Structure formats: C-alpha cells, structure tokens
C-alpha cells in the first residue's frame, strides 16, 4: 500500500475548484462539468453543476438517494444526455463537437471516440451471463480495441489475477458470488485502460460480508495513484479513507465539497450535517436510503 496522502486545506464553497495539487502535465482538469443540468420531464435532477476533477484525483460522491449523484456520473459515461451544459474529458468535449467555431451535438462516432477514455462499474455488475469469465473480460479488448487474441487474453488474465480471480477464468458469472462478480466487472472495465473510472454504488447490491473484498480492490487501484476515480458510495468510512475530495450532492446541486476530514469532521452546511448525522460515524454502513 502506498503512503497516506498529504492533507490539503481547500476552499469550501461549492463551484470553486481547487488548484491542481497533483502532478499534472497540461494543467487542465481531467473532467470538467460546465453548467450541466439534467431534467427528466418535469423533474430537475441536476442543476447547473460546475465541477473540475484533476488527473489522478479520487473523488467520492455522497448524498441521499434522488440527489442526482448517479445521474452525474452516468452523463460522463454517455448513458444520459445533459439537458444543458457541456462535459469535457481530458480537454475534449464529450457531448458536443466544435464545427465552424460553433458547438453542435456530437455524432455517434465522436461519442464513441471520447467515451473510450471513461470506464464504469455498475451496481448490478452487468456481467455477460452467457460468457465465461475470461471471455467477459476479453470481449471488449478484442472487438472494441481490436487487439489480437493473445494480447487480449494476456491483459485479461493479468487483470483478473490482480483482482484475485485468476483461478475462475472458466467459470460462468452465475457460479460466482456477488463480490466475485463485481471484481470481475472491475477487471473488465480496467482492462480497457480508461483514463477515468466511474464506480456507481458498486457495493450497494452486495451482502455485507462480500463488501470488503470489493472495497479492497478499489483501495488498491486508488493506492496506485495513476487513475482518476469518481466513486458514488454510501460507504462513508471507505470514502473518508480513500478519497482526495468528497462531494456532497443534495437536490441536484453540489452542496459542499472538500477534503474528507473537512467534510466529515467539520461540515459547513446544515444539509451536510443532517445527512452525515444519519451515519453517526459508526463503522456499520446503513442500507441505502
């Protein structure tokens, strides 16, 4: 495990982005949300989100259900389209293209190109049930990256061993426990070598005794320090331990953000305090609200 991160004191008002603290080649953020809003019909799920995430930064997003935190990262994975605003990944616009100096909605080809920089692990794992574990992990490298079979398999085996499932290559998803399936899902996403990894409540669907093995994998990825991670989670202890920055979302806005010990020990806003008080600083994670 790498050494613990230096504690950083930052501005605590939302919307103001912290100066780049980690090694950053270009100085530009890895992910940038500019005035992003999302409404489903009449329901406003996200309101004017402005957010910069630095390269290799680890951000944990917390908040009550319905706060929009899942929608926030789904838009980055191109699973939901923003109603307004722009999202940039590594300097490139995601949902838009610049044509003749104007912003136009992105074509499918452009979406696919930028999407490659992002990977996601889902709450329900979403493994392909009709494929063995090895094939689950090699399928995308083979058919999306166009890698030759030996290389795809080598990468897949390496990644599966890294998550501790090197001996399950020939099994089907249904034969594995929830924790094992989720670890395969993580391997499947990582093997594509994205620049940003999104984790959507990846332990919420697991039995309590299986949560630890998945969090251990996340911890290891975080410790390696070369992956930008956005983790939507209810696991407060985990977030406190692993994240560089905590985002508290409620009612579609970023109510408060800051380093873990600032948010958890000294929350500024009333809503943050109310939300955190439900967790009572206990090591037990409450069921999803």
């Amino acid at each position: 495990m790498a050494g613990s991160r230096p504690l950083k004191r930052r501005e605590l008002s939302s919307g103001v982005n912290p100066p780049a603290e980690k090694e950053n080649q270009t100085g530009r953020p890895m992910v940038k949300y500019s005035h992003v809003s999302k409404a489903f019909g009449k329901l406003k799920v996200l309101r004017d989100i402005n957010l910069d995430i630095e390269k290799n930064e680890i951000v944990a997003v917390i908040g009550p259900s319905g706060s929009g935190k899942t929608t926030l990262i789904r838009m980055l994975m191109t699973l939901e389209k923003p109603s307004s605003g722009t999202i940039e990944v590594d300097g490139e616009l995601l949902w838009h293209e610049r044509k003749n100096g104007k912003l136009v909605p992105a074509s499918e080809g452009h979406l696919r190109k930028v999407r490659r920089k992002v990977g996601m692990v889902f709450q329900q794992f979403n493994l392909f049930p009709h494929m063995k574990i090895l094939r689950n992990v090699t399928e995308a490298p083979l058919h999306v990256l166009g890698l030759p079979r030996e290389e795809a398999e080598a990468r897949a085996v390496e990644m599966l061993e890294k998550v501790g499932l090197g001996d399950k290559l020939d099994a089907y998803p249904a034969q594995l426990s929830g924790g094992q399936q989720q670890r395969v899902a993580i391997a499947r996403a990582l093997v594509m070598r994205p620049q940003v990894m999104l984790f959507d409540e990846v332990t919420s669907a697991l039995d309590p005794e299986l949560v630890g093995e998945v969090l251990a994998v996340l911890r290891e990825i975080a410790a390696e320090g070369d992956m930008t991670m956005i983790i939507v989670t209810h696991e407060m202890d985990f977030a406190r331990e692993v994240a560089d920055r905590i985002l508290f979302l409620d009612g579609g806005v970023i109510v408060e953000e800051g380093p873990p010990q600032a948010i958890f020990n000294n929350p500024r806003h009333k809503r943050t305090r109310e939300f955190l008080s439900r967790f009572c600083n206990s090591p037990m994670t409450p069921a999803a609200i």
Partner: protein
Amino acid sequence: MAPIIVGNTILWDWEYAVQIFPTLLAALKITIGATLLGFALACILGLPLAFGRRSACRPLTLLTGGLVEFVRSTPLLAQLFFIYWGLAEFLGVTMSAFTAGVTGLGIHYAAYLSEVYRAGIDAVPRGQWEAATALGFSALRTWTNIILPQAIPPVLPVMGNYLIGMFKDTPMLSAITVVELLQTAKIIGTRSFRFVEPFTIVGLLFLLLSYLSSLGVARLEARFKRGSA
C-alpha cells in the same frame, strides 16, 4: 391381412393401406420440405420485422406494426391465394406453387416470430445494454455478441411450437395446387373411391410427427430451464 368389415361396410382395408403407404411417405417429403424452407424464411424475415417494431423511428414502427397486425389478422389460406394468384397477376410474374406456398408460410410466420423475437430481446436486462455502451461496443457488436445470444435461447421452445404449427398448416398448400401429403391422399382417394385409408393414414402421420416434435420442444424447454440461473 383381411380387411376389417362391419356390417356391409369395409372399415379398414389393410392391403390397400399398405399399398398406398409408400406414395404417401414420398409426399410427406414435400410437406416436410415446405415446412423447413418456410420456417427458415420466417426466422430470417422475423428479425428485421422485430427491429422495425423496436426502432426509434416512428414511421417505421407504425409501418412494421401495421404489417405484422395485418398478417396476423388474416387467414393464411387467403394470403396464399393472394400471393399465388393475386401478386403473380399484379407483378406479371409466374412462380411455382411450391415457391408461392413457401413464401406465404414464411411471411405469415415471420409476423408471429417477430413478436417472439421482440419478447426475447425485451427480456434482456437493461444493464446489459449499459455495460455494452460503457465498454464501447458498436451497435452491431452489441447485438451479435451480447444481446441476441441472450435473447434467442429462451424463446427457442416457442419457436419450436410455431414450427410444429407450420407443419400442420402445410395442407393448405394443396389449395394452391402444391401436391403435398393431403393433396396426394385426396388424389389417391378420388381415384379408388376410398378415402378412409388415405386420410386416416395422413391424420396419423401428422399426429405422430407433431407429437414427437412437441416432445422434442418440451425437452428443449426443460434443458433451458435447468441450465439457466
């Protein structure tokens, strides 16, 4: 064997039955051929229809939906007549009765299979589509490697039942002059003035083959139920 006689009527003439059996078996081949070709056509045509009904383009969904509804609401026999005599006259082409028959069976059952495909595709969990998007799969790959392999196996038993249904519908082809099993029996019967043996044998042949096939379908269904989680 002596014929079975009741009163003044011959109930069953064994000698005659044995005599006509080979001819009927030969005609059975035409029936089976029409069934298999018609079903292959239906399987193939059903897919674009299913895609059409699920598409985002509204005129397309309405068009294919209307087409499927129309085909399912009208008798196969009428459709066969329409294709063999009506379309041929309209387009100015002549097609063989067998071709018209197979086409009619194919189109009719494609409408039913499109519904079956649709149900199978809709049953694939949404998360599978999202995982495919997240990993960057193209639309084509998503269909061929992820969605269809999960959509089709559960509906194979239903497709099997439609195959059996098509087999039992083939006698209709006799109405557009295809000399299949039933027509052959009718010809034999008309020639010898005895219909009991030909039609009963035909009935038994249909019964036997459909029953065996339905056992096969039941086993397919059981195997799928056992194999899935």
